[in-house]
């Protein structure tokens, strides 16, 4: 096992620049089961892309790359603070408000 010290720099993909990602991609990156992602969608923490909408089969949901960051924060908060999906939604909304306030006092 020596994958270290590669000669040429590794080039990766910026996930958020991808047009969309599947629910399975999202599960893999967040290391959670599909049901946990479904709960986050039901609480409005994250939203599938409207093209297919929540009426579509859950297995066909696609998410914008930008969802990744929010989903990971949500999953971390749920795991570390033992929150349910509704509480996570509230926490993330309040954190967004704090961010906005902080920015407006800075500018």
């Amino acid at each position: 096992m020596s994958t270290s010290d590669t000669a040429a720099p590794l080039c990766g993909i910026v996930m958020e620049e991808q047009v969309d990602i599947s629910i399975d991609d999202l599960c893999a990156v967040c290391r959670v089961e599909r049901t946990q992602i479904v709960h986050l969608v039901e609480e409005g923490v994250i939203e599938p892309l409207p093209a297919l909408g929540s009426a579509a089969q859950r297995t066909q949901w696609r998410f914008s790359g930008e969802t990744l960051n929010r989903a990971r924060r949500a999953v971390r908060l749920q795991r570390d603070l033992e929150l349910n999906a509704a509480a996570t939604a509230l926490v993330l909304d309040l954190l967004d408000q704090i961010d906005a306030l902080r920015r407006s006092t800075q500018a």
Partner: protein
Amino acid sequence: MDYKDYYKVMGVERSATQDDIKRAYRKLARKYHPDVSKEAGAEAKFKELGEAYEVLKDPEKRAAYDQLGSNWRAGQDFQPPPGWGAGFERRGGTPDNEADFSDFFETLFARSGSARRSASGAGAAGVHLRGQDHHAQVLIDLEDAYRGATRTLTLRMPEVDAQGHVVMRERTLQVQIPKGVRAGQHIRLAGQGAPGLGEGGAGDLYLEIAFNPHSLYRVEGRDVFVDLPLAPWEAALGAEVQAPTPDGLVELKIPPTTAPGRRLRLKGRGIPGATPGDLYVVTQIVLPPADTDAARAAYQRLQGEFSKFNPRAHLKQGAKA
């Protein structure tokens, strides 16, 4: 290796009940969670807390830890007693962040358990499992996002050695940071995560981008803000001045009667990309000090010329009482 006082980390007595420990953890976790707290060092505190809770919440691990006795002090040089680990069975899966736990934790709880785990896994015929994905954060400068950069990363990752033991190994990776990347975005490096078992492929490595704090610029998504100090006459009469951008200096026209706090937008000069961000120059007005006779005389002439000027005229209405 340093001894860790897990009771002290959690702020509980050695006699605390499991409920006390859980309560203490919840309270401190809310306070120091890196997604919630902006306090410096919150992340390190949260990690320390997670390690302490990992041990104290589990009656078996707690009992093993308590066996070491209460005479140790945090930070004291520690060697495990001879025969340590014999008969200590580790149950359940590995938490996400265990790779980050201290050497102290690894010595006491991880080594025996993971060796056993790998012995039953890696050697078994017909077992093919995809390796775990790994996550790491990369701090870059704002300038790197404008130009792209190459970063050398050193990551600590668990690996299985020739004897089938799991050891922490340092890996060095050279990674291309693409131009236009923003804070909070993730770069996926396929196949750079943990190696798989059998014919299972390696996991992926995800790098989350964050910016080093910058002395000049503030970043909001794609947009970048910079404060531009002006002399009073530049703001009043208009001027052409140089303004810094992460791409280099630009010539900027300041219109006459520019108020402090005004945002001048330089379209497309924010973080580059398919939809580039904008750069906002926020004006500030700086008064020259009146610390010489000549300077005081200059202000007095100004006072004479503007004898009718009252900056507080609009305050009069509300202040009659």
